């Protein structure tokens, strides 16, 4: 026997039990790919907003500002010293800095311009300080102490503004997660429909399999295996598409001055995008298997 004949003999029996071009095949892989792409975009959006929320929360809620106003610069300086003393004596505050006069002027410029400021204009004194999460939970005593003991002093922890911002961002993040779940559910529905249609299209094969003693579980596993391949390939294609689209979004959002969340792919996002083909492969296998078993157990398939 020649080598070619040997190889041919080894290949015998390797044909899939269901034809490759059946059970919706290529078009189903395309549909799964599109859904995987949408799932990838939803996932990227989720992580982008999540990262932004964490960034905003960390940057803004990690600091407090104390403003000291007064009728004259001398009053302001006296009060500022008292305020600094209170800040330095408060546990949970660190890195206390006074905002320089130039920086204060810059903050005022957008409202009153740079050319018309008189030299004797009393500028409020501003202090910034890093605050521990524990102190951030209850700033009321510090706020009260400053208001009571220091004329013209007030504490701003940015809480009201950041809370609203973070809450809105969390809603967007939740929406992205819901979109991801819905897309995955849509993929499962498509797979179930295709598996049932494929089973009906191959009724003759299923009948022969029953005839030669195949169990419903065997038939379901054969079809499930086919869907594992379709789901994984479609999922991988969609995930690659999502990576490319995300890279494009990252370039676009870079020009937005850092206001929009960054869509650059971090390690966490990349890992989750890798999960999509695995998730869709597994989902396709399980969905197809359940659909096939349900259809077979309804008893519409005989020999």
């Amino acid at each position: 026997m020649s080598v070619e004949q040997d190889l041919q003999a080894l290949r015998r029996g390797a044909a899939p039990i269901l034809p490759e071009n059946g059970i919706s095949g290529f078009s189903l892989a395309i549909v799964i790919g599109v859904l995987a792409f949408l799932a990838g975009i939803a996932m990227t959006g989720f992580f982008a907003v999540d990262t932004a929320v964490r960034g905003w929360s960390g940057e803004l809620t990690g600091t407090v500002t104390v403003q000291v106003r007064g009728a004259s610069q001398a009053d302001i300086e006296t009060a500022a010293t008292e305020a600094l003393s209170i800040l330095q004596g408060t546990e949970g505050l660190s890195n206390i800095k006074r905002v320089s006069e130039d920086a204060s002027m810059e903050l005022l410029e957008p409202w009153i311009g740079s050319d018309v400021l008189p030299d004797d204009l009393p500028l409020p004194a501003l202090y910034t300080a890093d605050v521990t999460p524990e102190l951030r939970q209850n700033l009321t005593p510090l706020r009260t102490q400053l208001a009571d003991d220091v004329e013209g002093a007030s504490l701003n922890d940015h809480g009201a503004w950041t809370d609203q911002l973070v809450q809105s961002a969390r809603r967007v993040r939740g929406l992205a997660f819901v979109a991801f779940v819905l897309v995955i559910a849509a993929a499962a529905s498509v797979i179930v429909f295709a598996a049932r249609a494929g089973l009906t299209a191959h009724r003759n094969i299923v009948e022969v399999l029953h005839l030669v003693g195949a169990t419903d579980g065997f038939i379901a596993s054969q079809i499930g295996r086919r869907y594992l391949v379709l789901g994984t390939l479609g999922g991988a294609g969609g995930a690659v598409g999502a990576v490319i689209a995300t890279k494009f979004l990252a370039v676009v959002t870079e020009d937005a001055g850092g206001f929009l969340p960054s869509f650059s792919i971090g390690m966490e996002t990349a890992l989750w995008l890798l999960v999509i083909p695995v998730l869709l492969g597994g989902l396709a296998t399980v969905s197809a298997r359940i659909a096939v078993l349900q259809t077979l157990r309804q008893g519409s398939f005989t020999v």
Partner: protein
Amino acid sequence: MAAQPQEEPIVALRDVHLSYDGAREVLRGTEFKLRAGDFRFLTGPSGAGKTTLLKLIYAAHRPSSGSVRVFGQEIGDLRAAELPRLRRRIGVVFQEFRLLDHMTAFENVALPMRVLGIHPNTYRDDVVELLSWVGLAHRIDAPPTVLSGGEKQRVALARALVSKPDLILADEPTGNVDPVMGEKIMRLLLELNRLGTAVIVATHDLNLVRGLRQNILRLKEGKVTLHGPIPEAPSETPPQARRGQAS
């Protein structure tokens, strides 16, 4: 092939009635027994219930009433999960072959072994040998689409035999093949029977039946009208056949 005790028939039908969807009864009080190693031709006119009777035996149908026992199991009581085990002991051959066109002859014959989860190395030689036995060693890698009717039927026969069943059911196995090939297939079934496998062959071809001198089970309107040797002057020879013989 597991031997059955002589006193225990492998197939036993008692007062079997079957009607599809409550319409006309196809089987009406059918009774017969088949023991291990028996050979029966199942004859009768179209609509007599031959195919239905075979379907009852391989549990594609359940009786409306009466008892169908196959390998000691009551068909009517079997759960769906128990059917594969029963069917693995029965090889079935159909007039329309029922081969899978996307597979080669080898793969079609090997299908029951794959279903059993047996590794190809274990059955590869058996399948090749079986295909050689039915005269198809040269067509081993051919798909059914390029095979003649006779070749397809021999592949179907090899598929029915590969798992070494205790019982072969053949429903009009010569219906779609020429007479020479039909006789060849019948000879293969007889040879198989001589090796110990019980065989039931449903057929219209009384000339073939008469030439092979085996016991017959004649069905008429769902009832067994004859069970035993074929009569010398069969009364049910179709008029066309009689005309053919006369000429």
